């Protein structure tokens, strides 16, 4: 169906739970697991290119703000911390705003008002509050990078579904013959809601199966131990 759909299953769960980078990328994926930062997720994913650009811009802001907040975390009094965090995030977003404008005008036009809106992306404030305000600089930076790339990954998953079905292309490359009738609904707002719902359902099914497998495994182990105990007693 899509080029990077299989990859999200092969990457598997993160082996080390305390690795902040993998944690953000997969285990606590901001979009698929935590369901945060919905606005850019739905608004910007009508093409893979925009999705990747948005994902990278957010990664940049998230990494920078997590790093800076972690540096100043002991200097900031508790009462004004939210205001300080917001000011730091807004500074990073201003940098990105001008950076994207300098790198590519078409991308800047496509993303439009959503670049300044990165400030209001709940993921960034959530990570600042939940992680960067408590952990050392290096860990916070890795957490920001992981979360950001996880976000970019989720965005490109959504962008893939929407672009392939809605326009018959992937990253602008036509995938089907000229007879393909694009399913325009997927490029329109309802398509965003539907494809995100489908992704969430896919992941829910996958997690459900995994949980069931683990329960079965634990049960089998328990029975085995029970039998061994019986054997010992006998």
């Amino acid at each position, binding site marked *: 169906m899509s080029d990077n759909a299989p990859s999200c299953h092969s990457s598997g769960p993160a082996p080390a739970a305390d690795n902040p980078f993998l944690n953000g990328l997969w285990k606590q994926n901001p979009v698929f697991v935590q369901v945060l930062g919905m*606005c850019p997720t739905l608004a910007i994913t009508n093409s893979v290119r925009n999705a990747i650009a948005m994902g990278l811009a957010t990664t940049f802001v998230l990494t920078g703000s997590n790093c800076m907040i972690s540096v100043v975390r002991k200097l900031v009094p508790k009462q004004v911390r939210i205001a300080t965090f917001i000011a730091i995030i807004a500074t990073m977003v201003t940098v990105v705003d001008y950076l994207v404008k300098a790198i590519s005008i078409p991308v800047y036009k496509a993303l439009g008002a959503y670049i300044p809106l990165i400030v*209001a992306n709940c993921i960034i404030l959530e990570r600042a509050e939940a992680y960067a305000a408590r952990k050392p600089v290096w860990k916070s930076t890795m957490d920001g990078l992981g979360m950001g790339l996880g976000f970019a990954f989720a965005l490109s998953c959504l962008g893939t579904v929407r672009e392939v079905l809605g326009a018959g292309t992937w990253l602008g490359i036509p995938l089907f013959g000229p007879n393909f009738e694009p399913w325009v609904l997927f490029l329109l707002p309802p398509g965003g809601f539907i494809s995100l719902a489908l992704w969430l359902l896919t992941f829910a099914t996958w997690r459900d199966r995994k949980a069931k497998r683990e329960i079965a495994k634990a049960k089998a182990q328990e029975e085995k131990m029970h039998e061994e105990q019986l054997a010992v007693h006998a």
Partner: protein
Amino acid sequence: MNDSLGHIFIDSLLINNFVLCVFLGMCSFIGLSQKFSTAWRMGVSVMFVITVRGVLSYGARQLMMSLHVEYLRIIVYIIIIASTVQLTEMFIKKTSPALFRELGVYLPLITTNCAVLAVPLFQDSRGYNLIQSTVFAIAASGGYCLALMLLSLIRERTYLSDVPSLAKGTALTLILAAILSMTFMGFAGMGTGS
């Protein structure tokens, strides 16, 4: 583009509904739409914040233009939002402690509600004057309020229906939102005939 006040109002209330067509304020849209009573209160507080700051940010915009510091706009706007939210919080705490408890954590979260930040950004890019800005702010936040109330009413009914356990929660809400969004697509083209 047609910039009459009526057109701005209909356009941002229905045709380009802030939540269902422009995807702003999604977090609270999904998070706060479980109960109608919470939803309409949240909608009204957001309306209040957006309208107040719509006017304030117009003033700030003029000030920044006269000082040639437009590059500060994101920081200035977010600070205005934070202080307006603080003001609203104090106002609600004084007038209705029950509502204050009910809104709980979501009240400070208005600060990171993208709809609130998007209003002044759209005002800038479309070059609205003061009256147009105010109408736009009221209509956009009214659209947010409308969408939130509609979704909460539908969600209240789904509690009794039998849905697959996997789809319960966010996925179901997103599908409901998709249907609502498709309905709102029917408004496209309204107001362009005249």
